[in-house]
């Protein structure tokens, strides 16, 4: 069984404590079970793996938490059991994705989140951590956020560090505009893994134009980690155009405590444009093009996507993409369709193929297709069955199957009426 760190136990214990006085306005529970069979390569041989996977989510709101007014509890996680083709990491695994209590106090000026959470905004870069976040509104438009804790280990047990802390100051002159300055420090085995300062902003001079950008600067390396700026313009109600210029230093997304962080200082620059045109209310076309330079070596990327609602309940999509990744690339084509047959039954199909410029295993193409049926067989219940097959550079012929059953149960105290 995959070990659950001791700190996760503390987090869950804190959550259990929070519900010790169970005055709750509502609870939503979601259980999703997956049973699938798909080919996998193990030690150079193809085997059939059949994992049973369970996703669990519990969300309780309106908790009567002392001092925090109306609080909220969320716990979500997963567990898996290998029925066939057990993973080398063991037959069973599981983890907590989120486990936090969120409350507000001081006349809603303070928002406090305790437990396993995702921290976003500015330099935090969506860090998942076991810890605490506090956000305080100093004035109506000025907000200060501080967070700290232990970064959560990624899948496959990749360390993210021993401790992390940071914060952000933001001023929002309007609902859709904001400017912020942020800071993040992550330590790993006593070494600086990441030490960044950032600025970010979104400015919307009109309803049809908004400009967003951010820059992150490494205080450890005194270089720009990444910077991006771009306007988004709704030229007509049916036509949108987005432009972007981006620079990123890929090596600065490696932990500074990594031995490979001393080897290179590459930079990747990108200019891009995306246009979306609603040809008719039921037909939309999106086209994008990007030019990139990796330490001066050029690459490019372009694609187009068409989505058409050809009849009520029927959606067709088609996508074509070309990617030139500096010294190799691919062409990719994809078509998809979904059709609602009845109120409760939807069929969907998907075919995806690409052609590589370089072969793998002597094969330079791949084609996979799948069909899925989605059936709402009872209120709050959904079942999905999927069958897929294809030929890939790894496997001359492959087939896979999956069954999913999802159940969502919700009770709200305020839904009750008096007799």
């Amino acid at each position, binding site marked *: 069984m995959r*070990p*659950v760190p001791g700190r996760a136990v503390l987090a*869950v214990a804190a959550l*259990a404590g929070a519900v010790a006085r169970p*005055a*709750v*306005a509502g609870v939503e*529970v979601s259980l999703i079970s997956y049973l699938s069979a798909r080919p996998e390569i*193990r030690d150079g041989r193809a085997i059939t793996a059949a994992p049973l*996977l369970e996703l669990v989510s519990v*969300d309780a709101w309106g908790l009567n938490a002392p001092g925090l*007014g*109306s609080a909220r509890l*969320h716990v979500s*996680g997963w567990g898996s059991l290998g029925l066939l083709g057990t993973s080398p990491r063991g037959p069973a695994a*599981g983890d907590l*994705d*989120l486990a936090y209590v969120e409350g507000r106090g001081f*006349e809603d000026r303070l928002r406090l989140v305790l437990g396993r959470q*995702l921290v976003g*905004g*500015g330099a935090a870069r969506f860090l*998942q951590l076991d810890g605490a976040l506090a956000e305080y509104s100093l004035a109506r438009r000025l907000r200060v956020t501080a967070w700290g804790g232990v970064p*959560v*280990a990624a*899948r*496959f047990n*990749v360390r993210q560090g021993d401790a992390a802390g940071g914060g952000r100051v933001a001023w929002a002159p309007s*609902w859709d505009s904001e400017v912020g300055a942020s800071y993040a420090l992550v330590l790993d085995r006593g*070494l600086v893994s990441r030490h960044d300062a950032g600025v*970010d902003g*979104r400015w919307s001079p009109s*309803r049809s134009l908004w400009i*967003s950008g*951010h820059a992150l600067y490494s205080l450890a390396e005194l270089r720009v980690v990444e910077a991006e700026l771009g306007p*988004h313009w709704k030229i007509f109600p049916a036509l949108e155009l987005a432009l*972007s210029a981006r620079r990123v230093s890929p*090596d600065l*997304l*490696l932990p500074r405590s*990594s*031995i490979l962080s*001393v*080897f290179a200082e*590459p930079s990747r620059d990108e200019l891009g444009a995306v246009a*979306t045109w609603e040809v008719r209310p039921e037909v939309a076309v*999106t086209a994008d093009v990007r030019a*990139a330079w990796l*330490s001066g070596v050029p690459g490019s990327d372009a694609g187009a996507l068409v989505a058409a609602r050809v009849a009520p309940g029927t*959606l067709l999509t088609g996508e074509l993409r070309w990617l030139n990744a*500096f010294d190799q690339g691919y062409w*990719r084509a*994809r078509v998809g369709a979904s059709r609602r047959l009845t109120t409760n039954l939807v069929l969907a199909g998907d075919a995806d193929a690409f052609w590589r410029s370089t072969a*793998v295993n*002597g094969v330079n193409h791949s084609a*996979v297709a799948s069909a899925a049926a989605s059936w709402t067989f009872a209120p709050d219940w959904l079942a999905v069955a999927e069958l897929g097959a294809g030929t*890939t550079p790894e496997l001359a012929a492959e087939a896979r199957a999956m069954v999913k059953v999802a159940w969502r149960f919700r009770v709200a105290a*305020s*839904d*009750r009426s008096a007799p």
Partner: protein
Amino acid sequence: MSGRRRAALAAVALTGAACASLFTALGRRADGIKMPHAKHVAAKVDCLACHETIFDAEVLSEADLPREKVCLKCHREEKEKGNCGMCHLEPDRPGTYPHQERAVVMSHAKHLELKEVNEDCRTCHLDLPEPSRPALAAKPPMASCTNCHRHEQEYASGGCNACHLDLSRYALRPLSGFSHQGDYLRSHPADARARGAACATCHEQTFCAECHARTAVAPVAWLLPERVDRLLIHRGDFVGRHDIEAKADSATCSRCHGTSFCADCHATRGLLSLSGSPVDPHPQGFSDPRSAAFHGPVARRDIATCAGCHDQGASSTCVQCHRVGGVGGNPHPASWLARHGVAELSTNSMCLACHP
């Protein structure tokens, strides 16, 4: 039993206890208070007589609902007779008002001061709770608010959270100012970084965690085969093209997968051999300094991809050749010494891997 195994079992037990506690709370029929407002109004009882504290209430709170002692001012006789059922829905287990989520920002104190309201509760409370109707149905409708607060600008820009504390459980569509059309999968980080509060109007962090949680169990594309309309990064045979995608934008991969992800997966698949394996990720001549495909320039340009497999700290392949005195020579980029002085050798333990 190992400490970690015990910790895991304890976590499961505590989670179960927390869930059980919640279900117990919900499964039990909670008490509530029957309050026939119509009878009280007909008896010309002033609102203030029972709701005195509401005149100073800055936020919505159950604490401002009348306490029992207020009711007993008139109905003490019924309590003394044991007629608990007169007010309590569950007289056998008498409690207080059912707990409700505070969903909006609303100051009764400020509203009651307004001359348009003039301390008349019926300005907003067009309908009052009765025993025959759930309390929720008797809350003032949003139209009561918009009679005075037109909020045209907030509607236009989606500024709902000035009043609504949480809209994430409502089925809303993205507004023009935050249009999710086109390639929003690629462009959404800019909005999330700089205006996460706007994202949070509709999306809880559970939504973000589907993709961004490092603990997530599988790519979303695997879990949602029925959503062919969604642009998802790992759709189709992503494994067959992942090397090209990683080369095109390794920074995007490393945000989620970190170092050693690649090595772990390649090890599971038995693809780590460099001895002529057809899926060896290195081209011919990768170790030959005379070859155009020599690894030095490639590593300078794309070290994040190297780190995917070779980030084993002091025991990594790179260190064996590039350590001081090794055949690989000095690996540091030209500007390295400008930022990392020799003194760092004694303070940064990582330096000792190559500079013993």
